[in-house]
């Protein structure tokens, strides 16, 4: 566990302006933002896999993972409308203000996995937290081995970050596989569930880490396939979600067994997840 390289904003949110909003998939929008305070705008650094607590003024605060790379990437969050606060967020327009606390959490390993192969496996909106790591690794491509992405969603309409996907398909040295549950006219990629695709592929096993993110059913079935291929449990990472209120390890809403997801996580190895002592 390690904290980000900057001192996080702990109690009083920093004000940021929404500069652009993009519709992604049904009920999901991406909000691009810039901090009002130039000092903060300059010094705000994150690690892939971290999250922030975002205040929608007048509605409340919610935890959201950061999908942008620590370097050279527009700051944004991608949020699904699913409750009172996120519904209020979806009503906002460019120019409106939000509050940011953080960044919090431990993040995906980056330095530690240099030289290794990386397999990213994502399902549906599970691509959001992984995007940060993917972009960052691609920005330092030569420092890693094979980089593979397996991404699936229910239908082509449910695939996140379609523009990025087009870029990634065309990127050399980035092995990408996309799948949807059922065949569709006009879809030339794979068909079937993500775990089935993982089972079919030839994947590296030695000096390899896997980052897996998606709904619980997909998660469990993918882990099974990866383990079957010989990838060790301590090399499989995921990011856990929990109801959070404070983000700093005090309110205890995010506790699982003996760990607090907001400070010890949200990134855990599968080996750790198995011994947490409670269901995820």
């Amino acid at each position: 566990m390690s904290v980000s390289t900057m001192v996080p904003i702990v109690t009083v949110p920093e004000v940021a302006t929404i500069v652009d909003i993009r519709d992604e998939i049904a009920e999901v929008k991406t909000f691009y933002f810039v901090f009002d305070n130039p000092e903060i705008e300059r010094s705000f650094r994150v690690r892939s896999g971290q999250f922030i607590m975002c205040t929608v003024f007048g509605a409340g605060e919610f935890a959201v993972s950061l999908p942008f790379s620590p370097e050279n990437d527009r700051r944004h969050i991608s949020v699904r409308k699913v409750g009172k606060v996120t519904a209020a967020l979806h009503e906002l327009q460019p120019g409106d203000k939000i509050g940011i606390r953080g960044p919090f959490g431990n993040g995906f390993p980056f330095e530690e996995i240099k030289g290794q192969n990386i397999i990213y496996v994502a399902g549906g909106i599970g691509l959001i937290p992984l995007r940060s790591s993917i972009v960052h690794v691609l920005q330092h491509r030569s420092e890693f081995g094979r980089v593979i992405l397996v991404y699936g969603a229910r239908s082509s309409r449910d695939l996140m970050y379609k523009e990025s996907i087009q870029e990634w398909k065309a990127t050399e040295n980035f092995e990408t596989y996309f799948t949807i549950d059922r065949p569709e006219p006009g879809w030339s990629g794979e068909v079937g569930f993500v775990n089935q695709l993982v089972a079919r592929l030839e994947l590296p096993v030695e000096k390899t880490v896997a980052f897996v993110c998606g709904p619980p059913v997909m998660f469990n079935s993918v882990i099974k396939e990866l383990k079957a291929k010989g990838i060790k449990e301590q090399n499989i990472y995921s990011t856990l979600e929990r109801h959070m209120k404070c983000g700093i390890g005090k309110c205890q809403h995010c506790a699982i067994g003996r760990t607090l997801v907001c400070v010890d996580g949200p990134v855990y190895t599968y080996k750790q997840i198995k011994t947490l002592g409670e269901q995820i």
Partner: protein
Amino acid sequence: MYFLEKAKLPQLFELLKRDYEIYGPVQDEVSGEVIFDRVPESSGFDLEAPIPYNPPKFVLFPHFEEILKYRYERQTKRVAIERINLLQPKVLLGLRSCDLTGILCLDRFFLGQEFVDEVYLEHRKKLFIISNTCVRPFPQCFCVCTDSGPSAREGFDLNLTYTGPGYLVEVGSKKGQKLVEEMILPEAGLEASRLKKRIIDDSVLSFDRVALENKAWISRATNRLTTGFVRPEVWEYIGHQCFECGACAFVCPTCSCFNIEDVNFRTGDTYRVRTWDSCSFEGYTKMAGDHNPRKPVEDRRNKRFFCKLSYSQSKKYLRPGCVGCGRCARVCPGDIGLPNVVTYIRREITGD
């Protein structure tokens, strides 16, 4: 160690009143029940009143507290945010050692982990603690099982021990020393430490005779809870009796879970409010969308006792999470306070 004559208590009170709001045990004339509350006058204030029904944590960690205020004007896009910090210095006068241990746990939790909770820190900085040794236990007590009494060893500014003619006074901090000097208290003499030890020993010995409501085999239970070797049937049995009221967490001196809500006021300001919450509730872990990882009530009971007693949790407090005050047993509608739960676990181990 110093000595404070009983007759000098009002003087102590007045001295404290000058700089602090005073909180201490307040006894109701009609019912005889004791509440830890603001004490307006020194008359009628009795340091030897029985253990208060409520823990003093509300002074440091209020039931309902505004922590931030903000105002967002959508037309002009202007935002104003400020911390709320109107805190008076407070003194906890006559704090029992179990409750003081509770505060130490809260200190270690709020101030000593990855982040410092700034809200709690403000309260804590303005707090002066004068604890009071329990020269006798009360029927609900079991602090001897949780190593949190009957006398405090650390964390106080001053610690009092009643001897009859007055109080032995130990100093625990610079603030405490200053007060002792201001009152010009005499030294207690060579016999003082031995006298104090005797008083504490007598108190411990009377537990068997007086503290009859709760006996808890904490160490055995801690073992089982840590390793997870309590059968699900036991938790189901306990879960059936849970009324899901949250009381156990609210009355516990070491429980500190909270909820945050933004409340819009008619004036146009929004206040961010922090309120007590409890892991007993089903909605506590429910995420927006469907998933609730701790839905069945028996899982929540399991979690709470794990939190209070297992070894790994004690890392965060550097001691067991239970201070033996007995309040959860008194306040539980389902009669499954910590001592009873420990008894069920013990029965499962010993088979009787």
